[in-house]
């Protein structure tokens, strides 16, 4: 967080335009080298560190948009960053670059896995990988939870979602809609009456 305060002000106006090809190549490299999950850390190194296309404030804003929307962080971030740098061609280039290496890897893995003579050995190795993946994913969410969960209500909504899926068997869509709606309502905006001047100003701002 301290880096966010020391970072330079957003260079939005003075930002030099980046070509969609350069965006594609940058995300292709990230997409091919970001092993072990945690793509966001790789993105920060490349986009804020090496390329200096964004400062920490703008990067943080993009991650919070990514987290709120459906879709994966890696691809949501690629789209948001690509769009800010070069509009929809940038977003498209970033998305394709981010996805292409994984697509080739996973399609090839499918070809190997469907070879019947390779399957017993592959399955044995993958049993070990799946076990390690449980630990890795648990650790990832443990770290996120430790950082972002505060107070009784947060803990309650985490438990409600877990019980909705694994105990009550509501299914993901119902659980998401039901628990999500209650959670959003719980954190609803404080009903402080706005002055009419404030409303006008907001309305004018919304037109820009």
């Amino acid at each position, binding site marked *: 967080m301290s880096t966010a305060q020391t970072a330079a002000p957003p260079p939005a106006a003075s930002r030099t335009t980046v070509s969609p090809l350069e965006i594609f190549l940058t995300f292709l490299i*990230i997409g091919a*080298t*970001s*092993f072990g999950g945690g793509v966001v850390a790789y993105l920060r190194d490349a986009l804020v560190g090496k390329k200096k296309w964004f400062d920490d404030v703008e990067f943080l804003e993009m991650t*919070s*948009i990514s*987290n*709120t*929307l*459906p*879709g*994966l*962080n890696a*691809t*949501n971030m690629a*789209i*948001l960053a690509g769009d800010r740098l070069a509009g929809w061609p940038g977003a498209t280039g970033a*998305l394709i670059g981010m*996805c292409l290496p*994984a*697509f080739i*890897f*996973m*399609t090839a*893995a*499918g070809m190997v*896995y*469907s070879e019947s003579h390779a399957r017993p*050995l592959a*399955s044995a*190795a993958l*049993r*070990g*990988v*799946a*076990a*390690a*993946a449980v*630990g*890795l994913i648990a*650790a990832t*969410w443990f770290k*996120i*939870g430790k950082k972002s*969960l505060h107070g009784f209500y947060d803990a309650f*909504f985490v438990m409600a*979602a*877990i019980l909705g*899926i*694994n105990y009550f068997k509501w*299914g*993901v869509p119902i*659980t*998401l809609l039901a628990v*999500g709606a209650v*959670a*959003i309502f719980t*954190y*609803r905006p404080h009903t402080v009456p706005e002055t009419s001047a404030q409303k006008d100003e907001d309305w004018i701002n*919304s037109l820009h």
Partner: protein
Amino acid sequence: MDQLPALARVFAYLSLLTIGGGMAAFPEMKVLIVDVHRWLTADSLTHVYATGQMSPGPNMMMVAEVGQLVAGPLGALVCALAFFVPTGILTFLVGRLWKRLEHWPWRDSIQKGLGPVAIGLAVAGLITFGRTAVTGWLTLVVGILTFVAVVRTKINPVFFILGGAVIGFIALR
């Protein structure tokens, strides 16, 4: 070939459930792929998901392997497009609206509310995944050691994933 429309439908639908990450959609994915369409067995789906953890880039590109196993390379492409393009367009549009929503008081409410729900859904998905992945004492030990190592050290987790592969190759045949 005749499975392509069903693959597209299933993965476009699943992509809308990936709030906070792919794990949130896993329980629904298991129901649709294993029980409803019978494209893969529960064990195969676990193996394919595990393979995704070894991939660079977005781990959920495992959807392409499902497509490849069901309908070949074209299936892989259909699954990848169905899974990444619709949510991608949504992200693109909301990304552009975001600044204008700055004064919309519910924006913060949605962010604060969905945070814990996303974590709960991910843990629920992990429990579902763990039921088929943790099958005995050895897999349990591998899982716990990986958890401790990833929480306590800064070593790239891909090495623990590869370590799991070696242990599996030797001891889980």
